[in-house]
């Protein structure tokens, strides 16, 4: 009798433990899916302080990390996009007071794969954003895209002839 009672008690205790129910939970907070860049590949947009910004530089853009980088004589970037529908190109840059005093108003233009996309006249020192829709067929999905800039006039160093166009903050394609 004693053994039976013990066995029943042990079985009941074990059953209680094994039957522990977890139940259901409310939905958790929803996270943002796109947080920032991944290394090892081009994408459609770059900011000059991105950790992989150097991978987008083709020529004539400073390699010193920072929010802004100097664009020199023939600045050129490269990109790659997955989806080319409703694509816009935008560039954010600044004309510093120190160069503007010498050059006066500057005309900045950008070209995508060799075709001029947009032009802007910068009549004062400060921040600018140049944005323009990309015509169908100008870029292809997953293929390298070359973007070049031209600034006129450029600041020319009296010492060594080095030329400064503007200070680049970000550039790239959006939808």
């Amino acid at each position, binding site marked *: 009798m004693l053994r039976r009672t013990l066995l029943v008690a042990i079985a009941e205790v074990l059953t209680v*433990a*094994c039957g*522990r129910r*977890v*139940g*259901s*939970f*409310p*939905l*958790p*907070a*929803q*996270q*943002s*899916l*796109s*947080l*920032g*860049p*991944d*290394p090892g590949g081009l*994408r459609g947009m770059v900011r000059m302080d991105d*950790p*992989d910004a150097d991978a987008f530089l083709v020529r004539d853009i400073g390699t010193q990390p920072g929010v802004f980088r100097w664009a020199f004589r023939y600045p050129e970037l490269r990109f790659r996009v*997955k989806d080319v529908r409703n694509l816009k190109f935008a560039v954010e840059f600044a004309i510093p007071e120190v160069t503007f005093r010498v050059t006066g108003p500057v005309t900045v233009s950008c070209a995508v794969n060799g075709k001029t996309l947009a032009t802007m006249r910068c009549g004062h020192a400060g921040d600018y954003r140049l944005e323009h829709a990309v015509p169908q067929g100008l870029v292809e999905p997953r293929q390298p895209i070359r973007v070049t800039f031209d600034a006129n006039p450029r600041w020319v160093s009296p010492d060594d002839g080095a030329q400064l166009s503007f200070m680049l903050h970000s550039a790239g394609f959006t939808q």
Partner: protein
Amino acid sequence: MLEVLHILFGAAFTVAVSTAVGTLLLRRLRLDLHRLEAALFAFVAGSGLLSLVIALLCVVHQARRGVFLWGGMAVIAWALWQERESPRRTALLPAPASWLVVFYVIFAAFFLAYFFNALAPEVSPDGSGYHLGNVARMWNRHGFVWDYHSIYSYLSQGTEMLFLMAFAFGRHSAAALVHFAFLTTLPLLMVCYGRRFGLVRPSLFAAILIYASPVIGMDGVAAYTDVAVATVIFAVFYALQVWDDSRNPNYLILIGLLAGSAYGIKYTAFLAFPVAVAFVWWKSGKLKGVLLLSIPAALMIAPWILRNWIWIGNPFAPFLNAWFPNPYYHAGMEKIYVDGLNQYVGIKHNWEIPLQLTMRGSLVTGLFGPVFLLAPFALLGLRHRQGRRLLLAAVLFALPTYFNTGARFLIPSAPFLALAMGLGLADSPGVLAAVALFHTVVCWPSVLTTYCDTWAWRVSSVPVEAALRWEPEVPYIARHLRDYALKVPIEQNVPLGQKIFSFAGRPEAYIDRDIVVQYESTLGNLAQDILQAPAAHPPKHRQRFSFLPVSTRGVRVLNIASAKSFWTVAEMRVWSQGRELPRAVGWRVSAWPNGWEAPLAFDNSYATRWSTWQAMPPRARLQIDFARAERIDAVLLECDPAWEARVQVEVLTDTGRWAAITDTVEQSTDDLPDGIRLAATRDVKALGIRYLWINDSDFCAEDMKNYAKFWAITQVAEGNGTRFYRID
């Protein structure tokens, strides 16, 4: 030198209080033990009772120096007062003087070598890791630390309770010295056993074999528990034999206490209790005797079972998690952990095992000495009744080796084997002495080094200067524990209470911060899984289940296959008319198994995922209950492919039953949005982990080093092949 005195006091005081408690117990039980065996049994039984009391103090967070000191002094005084009236106990059978001289000379030599090793700063892997890691944490909180989860803190901690008392006065080395006390008790107990049962020479021979055995010596001078287990198990066996002769029922109480405290020291020693019950039942056939034994055993075992049951929901944590599911340790990780322990890694043939266990030692983490190659001679002991019992005990207490191949798991079996060998060889004149002396010579640290593997776990020197602190502690520890180099930068940079994640175990006894180790807890498993997501299992695989539109209050995906791998889902989305049905506040999500982590499949993060965290069982499921009926026509699973899973979609019908609607799946892969590294550190941070301690050989170490900015981590310190990062 003052530090050494503190260490010695901590250890000696703990041993003295244990002995005092045991003395009071033996006096109460009125057992007819002889002088030396009474002292040894008093220490062994008293240590079990003392650890029980300290465990209770830990529950109420009163494990404090003052409580230990004044409580201990009171117990010692009480025992001395009681003992003054006791008649002097008789001595055991005399032993041959020549044998006694040889024994005590060898014993003294090894005693000194072991003593200085135990007194030196504790640098053993598990001792500086979880054994004293747990003790240090408990000492900081003066009791059990309920909010720290690790498989190693769920194990029974009988010896750690004694370590805690010693640690309170003398820190790490004092704890190791308490284990050294068990190491020294074991051979003396064996000699007493031989003198009581007329096996004087075999027992002296066996005691030498055990005391000089390299793995037993090394284990015994570290803050481990195996030698304590072996001592208590041998005491159980010893007391059973005495009870069998005397039939004094009070011995059964002592046996029960000892058997229970064996479980309290180490789970693998649970065998002591059923063995004792079986022996008593066999010899007496009376339930009363079994009960007399079982009640004190239950008293000693119950605290550990109850603690885990209430705390974790699993009385046998960290094992049997499949039977007792809980949110603190995954059943599948338990299986991986246990499977990893019972493999002989690096051994190509079973015939290598005896050689490893006796002469090499690197692949089984320790060696017993070449003389144990003569173990088959123990079979000659079968001619004697004691020999048969000893051999049976040797076999039974070797069974845990099936679960862990480390040589130290054979330590509880070794005393029985050595005694049986002694019995088997006793009739050959001179053999016992010759073999014992040979063993002594070849196991002496400097001789041992000439033939064992370089990496065999053993006492390899006698560090007198470090033991006496003539050599400062810090450089000594740093020389032996490479991770110790990061102690200062970690403690300077990590605020108290912050957690550190590591893929590998660390010397947590010396680092005053909580370290979440990958394989030790659910939290560690999750952090590891998240950090490995970018490279090991980005959920690029998509499984789309389309069906005719249906209005339902619930939908689930159900796996109907069974496989060894885990089934994982990073995100489960429901679609309607070509668009994802927006997740609504009123939804409830659930899963089986591992329902606690169901929300991870619905958090819109590709770094986290729900996983069965165990072999894929049939009817594993992931489920959404909508707040109101929703019209849906597809379910999308984003995951790492589990090809063995066979998934079907079920919807909840109006009658409240689940109806399968499709098992046709379109498989595809797609690129993930950028930033999964950032998502990983964000989600690890959300688990409460702000710091990462990464070895250069860890899976994601190179990526973290090269792309720290992409992970949003900053290196805080570096040293000895490890890097310490802060999540920004």
